[in-house]
């Protein structure tokens, strides 16, 4: 039996007609490619220190060098790897938790739904920062120890993993609310009734009939969660809780860069290039999210 997927015809075609969306996708593709291929291309190693400290941008060092003489271009590319991974995986964690929570809450309904939504409201009323900081302190050492047992070479990535989990776990609330709202409307429709009359299990109805209908909303929201997680990570870097040196994320590069901005001797490139890379990426993601929403919105005109 096929499920009627509520998706306006030609959504993809409409997306391709949107010039802003096309440019956003091109920019994202370039940044992702640079991040993926960065280690293979003949750039400087992001951790290699040279005697040229705080050198201005030149042909040898395209974006200049930092306080320790490391090539900023390579550091921005490494920052892209870390920030994109954290943003993407963090958003995926929030998607998994939020969708599962919203599906169950909306589908079961009644008192369970009420209790689950009250819990979300309580979490909304606690500043999210407490949860992140406490989670980082609680699990960081344990996770590092665990990873050390599996493979000592991966310990450097434990911070990235903890950030993904923590940021994902605070960003799921809105996703849960949106999914629940959609499920509440969908479960009253005929095809759900029909599936139930055919004797299908609840799990099957949830996964095979309701979930495919949520794809549009969820994809749009996912696209908009990635920039949010990247911004959250940069805020943690500002607090000194994010990625540690010698690893770099855009947040940590910006956080270092803002310290050297002064009118006497400005190493402007340390702020400008990471800021440009980050805002270009977030800008593209936001544009793409908006364009997706327009393309999937059945009421969209033109």
């Amino acid at each position, binding site marked *: 039996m096929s499920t009627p997927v509520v998706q306006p015809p030609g959504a993809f075609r409409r997306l391709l007609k949107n010039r802003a969306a096309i440019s956003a996708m091109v920019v994202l593709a370039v940044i992702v490619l640079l991040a993926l291929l960065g280690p293979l291309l003949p750039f400087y190693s992001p951790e290699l220190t040279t005697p040229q400290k705080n050198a201005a941008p030149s042909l040898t060092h395209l974006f200049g060098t930092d306080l320790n003489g490391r090539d900023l271009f390579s550091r921005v590319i490494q920052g892209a790897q870390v920030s994109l991974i954290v943003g993407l995986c963090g958003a995926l964690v929030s998607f998994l938790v939020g969708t599962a929570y919203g599906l169950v809450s909306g589908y079961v309904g009644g008192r369970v739904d009420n209790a689950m939504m009250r819990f979300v*409201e*309580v979490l*909304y*009323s*606690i*500043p999210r*920062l*407490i*949860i992140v*900081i*406490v989670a980082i*302190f*609680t699990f960081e*050492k344990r996770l590092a120890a665990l990873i050390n047992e599996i493979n000592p070479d991966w310990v450097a990535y434990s911070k990235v993993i903890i950030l993904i989990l923590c940021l994902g776990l605070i960003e799921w609330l809105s996703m849960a609310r949106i999914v629940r709202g959609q499920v509440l409307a969908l479960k009253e429709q005929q095809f759900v009734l029909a599936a139930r009359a055919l004797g299908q299990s609840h799990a099957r109805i949830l996964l095979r009939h309701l979930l495919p209908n949520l794809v549009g909303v969820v994809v749009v929201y996912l696209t908009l969660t990635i*920039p949010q997680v990247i*911004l959250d990570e*940069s*805020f943690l870097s*500002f*607090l000194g809780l994010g990625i540690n040196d010698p690893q770099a994320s855009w*947040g940590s590069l*910006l*956080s270092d*860069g*803002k310290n050297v*901005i*002064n*009118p006497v001797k*400005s190493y402007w490139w340390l*702020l400008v290039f990471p*800021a440009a890379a*980050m*805002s270009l990426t*977030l*800008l593209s993601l*936001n*544009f793409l999210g908006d364009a997706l929403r327009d393309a999937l919105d059945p009421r969209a005109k033109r």
Partner: protein
Amino acid sequence: MFGFIVRRIIALFLVLLIAVSFTFCLLRLAPGSPFNLNEKQSTPENIAKQEVLYDLDRGIPSQCARYLGIKENNRGYYSGLLFSNDPAAGFPDFHRCLKYKDRTVNELIADTLPVSAIIGGLSLLIASVAGIWLGSLAALRKHTWMDSATMLTAMLAVSIPTFVTGPVLVLVFALWLGWLPVGGWGGFLSLLLPSITLAGPFIAYIARLTRTSMLEVLDQDFVRTAHAKGLGERRVIYRHALKVAVLPVVSFLGPLAAGLLTGSLVIERVFSLPGMGDFFVNSVLSRDVFLCCGSVAVYCTLLVVMNLIVDIAYQMLDPRIRLE
């Protein structure tokens, strides 16, 4: 209406109770104790002694009950957030700060909340006025260069963290042009840069919200009716359309106000302001449960009150909505 407000105030107490207890337990469960961070002389006996002194001994539920003031504390009083009969403490008793031991949390909040509230209030004003204005401007001139430029700027503003825009604005307006002070607390001019920096991303967000909702409203029947009965363009937009178009913005302003009024750590660090945000983050880092729960209590109260105001404003703006 009256019943609605009463029910909301009861809900406030419930939310407050749950949120504060949750924060309390979370912070007590986290590794590290407020008494052994950065203190070399803290032996286990010393820590135990201090825990008894501050009512942080025995199990976490019992500690939390004593903090809320629903259980007798070690000095034989009921003293806490909900109830206090201790003549030495005020009501609500937020207890002593654990990091700065000569100060009570009540004093700290009384000192820092006004600073944060003034900056937050000003940036809330800037964000809503500028955001609504820019958003409706973009909607009225949709698909022109003005619309695209406004929306591009708005997107850019939400893509850069405030800890970058802050120092850049300081560099330009304070150090190069010398128009505004670099930071610190004193005089109206010193409020401008922090408020604008703080408002930046929210101006953008509100402008986008307003644009979308304005475009939707301009298509509705009552706007066509207003046009048809011969009202001027200005009157149709500002008296009829805008009133309904700002509804999504109003509901966004509720939680935003609670967040802005209780202070932003980034703004306070960049502009060296004595606000609440810095104390709040430090309280989490130093496991200062009393200061942290006190700040959460203030935040929650503001959040619920702001949401109540939003609901009442909704009804005033859109006569089709009735509160039950």
